[in-house]
């Protein structure tokens, strides 16, 4: 718990600086919102001006038949699947690396580092070949598995770093009581690891949600498209209806924003964790 702090000059200065900074970060989105109320002609006339009339046509156009809703569901499924796999595998592996420190740690760390570094474009053709062979092309699983596989190495490092901060005797005590390694993991390590697991989960959710490359190449059916891919439906080669495109982007961004607003308390609480080391 942080002690209640008295308001002083520093606080005011910091508040002012942060506000200015946040405004710079946020203004483009504010602009996005009020631009969606314009017609395309109005938009092309003057990109930054406030709308003259309040038109919801852009949203009608963006929603057109609810395709975006379907894409959001696909994105959610893939995000959930990939994140779940990644968190589970990374926690197990990170724990093992920290708790047991086998002799062959450098080999593992080096190969994980190499796996983290591979550029996705290079992997496209072999992955397509693999997925087609397994009948997974154009399926949700076909996107979930490679996405998770590429995110696991970084996540392992994060979990390993976390587990390294825990004292050794925490585990030794349980071991002396005769607990098996698995029990130690479940009963001792896992509960404490919640904040780190949440961190890995959130970072992965964001990555997978915004991922474009794998979904666009591996998925063909319109019904299975994810949001980032579906949004390109609003970007034209020569002509783009900007208010409609921006409305679509906003609709797409609503899902994660709403989720965050509702779960913010839980998220920050989980990120902090219970152990108040005083």
């Amino acid at each position, binding site marked *: 718990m942080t002690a209640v702090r008295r308001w002083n000059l520093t606080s005011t200065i910091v508040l002012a600086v942060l506000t200015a900074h946040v405004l710079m970060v946020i203004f483009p989105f504010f602009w996005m919102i009020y631009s969606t109320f314009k017609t395309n002609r109005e938009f092309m*006339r003057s990109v930054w001006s406030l709308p003259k009339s309040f038109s919801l046509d852009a949203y009608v156009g963006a929603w057109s038949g609810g395709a975006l809703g379907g894409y959001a569901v696909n994105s959610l499924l893939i995000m959930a699947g990939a994140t779940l796999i990644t968190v589970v595998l990374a926690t197990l592996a990170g724990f093992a690396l920290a708790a047991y420190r086998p002799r062959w740690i450098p080999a593992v760390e080096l190969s994980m580092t190499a796996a983290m570094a591979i550029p996705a474009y290079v992997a*496209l053709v072999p992955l*397509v070949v693999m997925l087609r062979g397994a009948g997974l092309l154009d399926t949700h699983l076909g996107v979930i598995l490679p996405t998770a596989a590429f995110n696991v190495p970084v996540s392992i490092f994060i979990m390993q770093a976390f587990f390294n901060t825990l004292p050794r005797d925490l585990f030794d005590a349980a071991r002396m009581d005769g607990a098996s390694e698995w029990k130690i993991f479940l009963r001792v390590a896992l509960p404490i690891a919640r904040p780190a697991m949440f961190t890995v989960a959130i970072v992965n959710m964001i990555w997978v949600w915004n991922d474009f490359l794998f979904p*666009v190449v591996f998925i063909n059916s319109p019904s299975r498209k994810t949001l980032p891919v579906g949004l390109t439906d609003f970007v*034209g080669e*020569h*002509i783009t209806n900007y208010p409609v495109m921006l409305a679509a982007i906003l609709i797409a961004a609503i899902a994660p924003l709403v989720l965050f607003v509702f779960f913010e308390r839980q998220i920050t609480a989980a990120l902090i964790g219970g152990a108040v080391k005083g």
Partner: protein
Amino acid sequence: MRLKRLLIAGAAAALAAMPASAGELSFWHAYAGQQDKVEFIDFALGEFAKAHPEVKLEVVAAEQSAYKTKLNTAMASGNPPDVFYTLPGGFLNAFVKGGQMYALDEELARDGWRDSFLESAVSQTSKDGHTYAVPVDVDSVVFWYDKARFAENGWTVPKTYEELLALAEKVKGEGLVPFSLGNKDSWPATFWFQYLEMRLKGSGVVSAFVNGDPDATLGAEATKAMEKLAELAKQEYFPIGFNGMSDQEANMLFLNGQAAMMLNGTWQIGASADAPEGFELGYFAFPAVAGGAGDQSDVLAGVAASFGVSQKAENKADAVTLLKFLTSREVMTKYVELRKTMVTVKDATTETAAGPVLYDISNKLMKAAGHLDPFYDTAMPPAATNIYYTSLQGVLDGSLPPADAAKRIEDALRAK
């Protein structure tokens, strides 16, 4: 004896007539993202389903840049779609070289299908005497301007290159940008270079390279063309930061009257739909360049989209049916109407469908042209295109000397 042979023949026939997907086709296209493209493809595929209910299409659409990644990946992984959209020229030729495309010569010869196309269009989707894709639409490049603004300022349409430069000076004096240009994706600047090369040397320069002509060369004229380009940039006739501006942003400048003229393709007609009140779209041909050896009436015009059939397609008969349907007069006229672009099928670009501006271009400018020169960047092999693009950007921002740029492109075109 005879019975056995009959049985074998029968079994063979039965097996041959049993392809895994009789009546099924995978059809990939890039008609997504833009309203008019989507309208057209929905119309075309809807009508096709009505006319040929026995052919089931598995349609995959992707927006232009994502489409290329998808298609290349599918091709490279050994599983291309049956029928697909492709750019003509270098893009298509890469597939042809790899034996991936099914030659349509036989089908084209039947029922006068080949004759329904403009000959210049079909030659752009053919190589070494065989045709590997059917061309769909034609884009041509002209100067666009706002008639109202010109009238207001008393500016007249230039007939020569010198008049064009003088006009640019006048426009600049008014505090406006003479030529709108958004060269982030590099292809807009190619229109300038190509027209200058066409005026100075003549048409067919790059086509000669592509056709393996041993005497093909860009000539010293290429350096002159580059120098003229560099001059235009130095005189600040283009917008500030044009190398980072997208074509669409440049279009906004043009529609808003902040720029007076724009050298762009015929899609400008559709792109000007959201122009402010009072805007009157007009066009004029690229003016004559004094001392130029080329035919000064040549027009930069090339096939923009084409559809081909994969060599690996099991159901080639249905594939051809689809292509024939898409390139039929009725569908093509609708294409003109919806997309306001010229098509490759004769007599499909009618006045009612095209509207006054496009019809004028199609009927007057194109018909009167000495030659129609296809787009360099589409015609040349993809590896050369990259070098073409970056060289142009370099010349325009002053970082690359014109002679070097011309040489680089020439070397790239010669490379095997």
